[in-house]
């Protein structure tokens, strides 16, 4: 009772602050200040990282802004206990990279479709936000440094009533909920002609802004399937174990990559070095385990560029 009253008093206080802020005080968010860098001291002090800092002195002491689409539980969301901070595998990985290269990280949270424009327009320095590296996306003005392989899960109603077996003709005539701009959209669209060849209607895609909206579409019966990273899918199943299940796991021919402006070769090469070190010490695997990303498969850092 007391705590609720305290909460109410605090709420009123914040509203008063709101009025004060309108009167002129500026109000900025300190969302996601990097975790104490000592957490990654081992990596930072490794000979490889020490050498990387010498090779890329421009990055040392800097703050690199990460363009983030924080709607993927396990990878990047706000911390529900302290929503001013971000949490997840990508956040930790970014801090580890920062520790290795000597920079700290802050964040700008944008819509998924705005991730690449935000970096190519110079409003952010890099993207570390569970973004699948594709040639088409690279053409938006970024190079990708890959770090994970992609496994997709197919989320369905419990018991898989529509008998979905994968991104195949089992989807004919069904509605698939997908995140706007995700790579699964063209993959599902490509099933359409195959369905029509069999005299069946093509699948319909229902596009949403974030994962939780997609999952709500399944729960509400508006969509029959939802595809996303298998770890994300499994999290939603754990949360709604009565209602949801996984139909299948599909390996897609993509990697997950860090996006950097295409002309910033110095930063790109530094990232390749840092990711290599973090993978070789097993830190990436540990971070994946910490966030219960059981299906996370390390991918060698390679560069994907539109040329």
């Amino acid at each position, binding site marked *: 009772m007391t705590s609720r009253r305290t909460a109410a008093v605090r709420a009123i206080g914040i509203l008063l602050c709101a009025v004060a802020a309108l009167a002129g005080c500026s*109000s900025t968010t300190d969302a996601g200040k990097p975790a104490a860098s000592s957490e990654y001291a081992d990596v930072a002090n490794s000979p490889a990282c020490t050498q990387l800092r010498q090779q890329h002195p421009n990055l040392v002491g800097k703050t690199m802004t990460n363009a983030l689409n924080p709607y993927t539980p396990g990878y990047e969301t*706000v911390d529900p206990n302290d929503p*001013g901070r971000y949490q997840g595998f990508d956040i930790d990985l970014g801090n580890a990279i920062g520790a290795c290269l000597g920079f700290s990280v802050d964040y700008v949270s944008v819509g998924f479709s705005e991730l690449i424009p935000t970096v190519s327009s110079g409003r952010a320095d890099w993207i570390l936000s569970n973004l699948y590296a594709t040639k088409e996306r690279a053409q938006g003005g970024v190079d990708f440094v890959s770090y994970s392989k992609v496994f997709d899960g197919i989320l369905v109603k419990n018991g898989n009533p529509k008998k979905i077996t994968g991104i195949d003709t089992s989807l004919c005539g069904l509605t698939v909920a997908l995140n706007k701009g995700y790579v699964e959209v063209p993959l599902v669209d490509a099933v359409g002609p195959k369905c029509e060849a069999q005299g069946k209607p093509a699948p319909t895609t229902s596009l949403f802004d974030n994962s*939780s909206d997609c999952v709500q579409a399944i729960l509400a019966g508006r969509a029959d399937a939802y595809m996303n990273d298998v770890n994300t899918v499994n999290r939603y199943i754990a949360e709604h174990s009565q209602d949801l299940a996984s139909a299948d796991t599909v390996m897609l021919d993509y990697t997950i990559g860090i996006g950097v402006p295409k002309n910033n070769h110095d930063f790109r090469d530094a990232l390749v070095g840092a990711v290599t070190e973090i993978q070789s010490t097993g830190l990436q695997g540990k971070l994946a385990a910490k966030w219960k990303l059981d299906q996370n498969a390390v991918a060698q850092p390679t560069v994907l560029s539109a040329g």
Partner: protein
Amino acid sequence: MEKFAHYLTTGWLLEGIVFTLQLTLYGFAGGLLLGLLLAAAQLTRFRPLTFVARAYVVIYRGTPLILQMVFVFTALPHVGISLPPLMAASVALAMNEAAFFAEIFRSGVRAVDPGQLAAARALGLAPKVVAMKVVLPQVARMSVPALGNEAIATMKNSALASIIAVPELTLRTQQLTSATFDYFSIYFSTAVMYLALTGVLTLVQLLVEDALNLDRTTRRSVLSRLVPLQREAPSAPLIASVRPSQPPGPRTIGAPLIRLAGVRKSYGAHTIFDGVDLEIRAGEVVALLGRSGSGKSTLLRMVNGLEDADAGAITVAGMVVGRDDRGRRLTERQAAEQRKLLGIGMVFQHFNLFSHLSARANVSGPLCWTGTPKVDADATAEALLAQVGMAGRADALPRRLSGGQQQRVGIARALAMNPRVLLLDEPTSALDPELVAEVLDVIRGLAHHEGLTMIIATHQLGFAKEVADRVVFMADGHVVEEGPAAEVIEAPSHEITSRFMNAMRAAEV
């Protein structure tokens, strides 16, 4: 329910309200200012400006706000303009809202009665004064409900700033739902927060509407009780009379004051005047007779420059109306000065009182706006309203007055500017028969007042015969006949005049 209450008091969400309020404030205020400029640009006669403003409205009203936001946020940095997210979203919101504000103001301006604008010009008010004192108050009052709508629309549209990294309420809601899986309790608590905010905006709108309500006479508005603004000065002591009514004495007819020479006027193919010559002497009362459409009103409007002649010249006291010494057309502002200098007042068939002002303010307002101290202006108004028998209704709005009462206020308003010429354009034609007499009485009183030159366009033959020194009968674009009133009305020499007089007499019986 517990979760709902928890999220309703989650500080992080409430902090999002600060950003939502900032976006709403900047978007609304910026949109209001830019919208005013756009509306003004569209209403000017300078074509390129109108075109640019029109194009702006078409583009910004015709493209989704979400694209405009992304454009300001991600495209402008490529040309070196990198606004912080909050400012980028505020600019995008303001630029989008401006298009809608411009249309609200423009429709408000268009809805202002053109008759009131003609009356304001005829009083010799400068264009700026007309805009500030006649147009703006009426537009502002008309626009309040629409502006309330826009304020709420701006607040709701501010949710779109979530896609360009402004940590406002909707963005925080989405982020929290993604992190906690408490989808519905978070969305519901956010909806309640928005509802509380828009509820406050609605309340503000209603208070402003109440404060501007013209029909409130006895009680003070809620707002004015909160804010002690002085709405009206205490009324000035009533002076006996500005113009003591004099007994009808011998009237002096002076030298020619108004002269029309070879005046031509046509509207498209329809010729109104085909070379009219006419002379009116100082102190003379002239009745202008003729069929409807014979150009009586047009002639009066040309004498005070509300209409331009196609050819020929109209001079008042030696000055060419609407032209300077070198024959160049005067600007609106110069024309207003000339009207004031020449002292030409006008009374309109449809009264054309300023609908947002009381009877007293209709008379005193134009005086105040042209530099007369308020106390003197009020005293003049009281005296003139008493002279036309309207002292008892000085605080009434025009729409609360009968036609005859409105016309008497219209006469008082024209007299307040102390004219030497009074043009009366069918002053009783729009009145119910039982109200005609009260207005004619007032005009009769004026006709007996020495010195005031009057031209009265009328269909009242008996009245014309009684008050007019001379009758001018017009038909087919010419002055057909003119002469002493009794002579032209009783024994016209032209057949066309005779037919008209007979028809009018038959109608009067």
